[in-house]
């Protein structure tokens, strides 16, 4: 009963905090635009600038957009990605290719193209390419975690404004308070995120490799995890919760390959990364997009569930200890 009352209380407090609604409304379109443009930029042609005075035999190629320039280009244009490659003609008629942000395989492809050599067909695709769906989810992970701490803000607020003491003086136990906060944050995160992914599915059509049920499951898993993380952070930290969790979320999602998949090649680092919940999540997302069965990823799901539960339990225990120590008085 007390859980329902606590939830009602939180919802009525939302009225004075329109910023939460606004930030959720801003986040959703941004994530969609970002995801669509990201997937668009991956499939779009690589741009090549050819620096030459008399370059006539422009080879039309479906993979590249070729621009002919008469002036020499600075290196910064490559560093900023305005052009992917710059091709220069040597005195002997041979072409050299320069690049900053593309890997060696692609560079050699371009070099072969200009020097009229054959391109080997396997080398054009790198193995770490990821589907649209999982790169979209990878982008969403960071936003969901940061938004989670914003939605959990009533909990630390209750501590600073001494409301928690009043709440605990009544019949409400710490457990039911934390559960109510969990439900509130979970729903507040889940609904907009699910809608965001569903809308992007509608925009991208068949490109996104999940069915609606799988999207529902995957967003539920990540919102559960980030809710637990937000509660955990709110109970162990005294202040600056948002700064700290932004910091941790950014670093963890980078290490776990949310934006760019990588292998460090060092065994210890890789195995530590694999233990982190977000890398299991990304593995699951990638595998499901390829069409593997859910059952194959039971270990990954187990890992995610373990992290969620452990963080929640630690949160409850620490809140209990802080209450006993009289920190909320």
């Amino acid at each position: 009963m007390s859980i329902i009352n606590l939830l009602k209380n939180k919802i009525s407090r939302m009225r004075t905090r329109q910023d939460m609604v606004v930030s959720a409304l801003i986040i959703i379109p941004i994530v969609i635009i970002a995801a669509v443009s990201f997937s668009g930029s991956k499939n779009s042609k690589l741009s090549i600038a050819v620096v030459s005075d008399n370059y006539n035999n422009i080879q039309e190629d479906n993979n590249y957009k070729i621009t002919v320039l008469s002036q020499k280009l600075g290196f910064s244009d490559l560093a900023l990605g305005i052009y992917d490659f710059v091709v220069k003609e040597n005195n002997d008629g041979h072409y050299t290719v320069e690049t900053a942000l593309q890997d060696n395989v692609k560079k050699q492809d371009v070099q072969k193209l200009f020097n009229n050599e054959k391109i080997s067909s396997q080398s054009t695709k790198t193995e770490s390419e990821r589907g649209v769906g999982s790169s979209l989810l990878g982008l969403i992970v960071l936003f969901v975690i940061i938004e989670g701490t914003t939605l959990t803000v009533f909990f630390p607020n209750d501590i600073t404004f001494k409301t928690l003491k009043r709440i605990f003086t009544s019949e409400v136990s710490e457990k039911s308070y934390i559960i109510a906060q969990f439900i509130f944050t979970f729903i507040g995160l889940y609904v907009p995120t699910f809608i965001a992914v569903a809308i992007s599915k509608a925009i991208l059509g068949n490109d996104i490799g999940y069915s609606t049920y799988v999207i529902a499951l995957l967003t539920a898993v990540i919102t559960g995890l980030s809710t637990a993380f937000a509660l955990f952070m709110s109970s162990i930290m005294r202040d600056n919760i948002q700064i700290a969790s932004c910091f941790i979320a950014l670093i963890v999602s980078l290490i776990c390959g949310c934006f760019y998949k990588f292998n460090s090649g060092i065994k210890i680092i890789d195995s530590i990364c694999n233990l982190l919940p977000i890398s299991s999540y990304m593995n699951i997302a990638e595998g499901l997009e390829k069409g593997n069965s859910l059952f194959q990823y039971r270990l990954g799901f187990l890992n995610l569930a373990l992290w969620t539960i452990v963080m929640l339990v630690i949160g409850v225990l620490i809140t209990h200890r802080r209450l006993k120590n009289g920190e909320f008085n």
Partner: protein
Amino acid sequence: MSFVNIVKFDLKNIFKTPMLVIVNTLEPLVLYIILGVIMKNKFSNKIMSSFDFYAVTTLIISATMIVMTTSNIFLDEKVKRGNRRVVYAPISKGQVYLSKLVSTFIFAIILFDILAFIEQYIFKCNFGGKNIIFVIILIDALTFFACSLSTAGCCILKNEDKVNSIIPLITSVFLFFSGIFVPLGTDSGIMKVFFSLSPVRYVTECSMQIIYDNNFALFYKTIIMLMILSIICILICKFTFKVEEYVR
């Protein structure tokens, strides 16, 4: 004279909050190392390694994200208690918000400048050799803009949580369209508009031009643009900051 005293007091406050110091020093360093390692294979050129690129860009990212430090210094409940006394002291109300802005700015540039020099001379990253000073000036100007943006947000929204849920969002959009994560060459119509609207984009572009091409074409324009934007933000503070509402 009283203004200097308030700034000193605020600076002490920031340096005494361990979280703020840790985040503003560790974040650029850790990000720089992680991104440098992750993206190593993508940078095949000898002129610019991933570490060179991310040493500059992580400092730009941290300079943009300083907004959360400013809001903490301005509106945190614990800091606010002391600030109430300052507000009631016989000083002009402009000094109240300007002192927060200036103290965060000083704090940030001390840390970022030290980091930039460490990264250039100890980690041997490329900040443009002797031109490092111009890159640092750019990053400092960006920091000043971010501080004044956040101060304006604090004056309008009047609550730390509200500020922290809206202003970092705006700055992360700036960052997303800054050429650090998405290459500037991406040419779909709407992306180009977003790219030209983000002030951070000009800082990245200008610093890359200075470092790799010794080209200062954008330098003064970028600085002047950032200063004008900062002045607009400070004017917003002037018109929206009300002592009664701050004390409440």
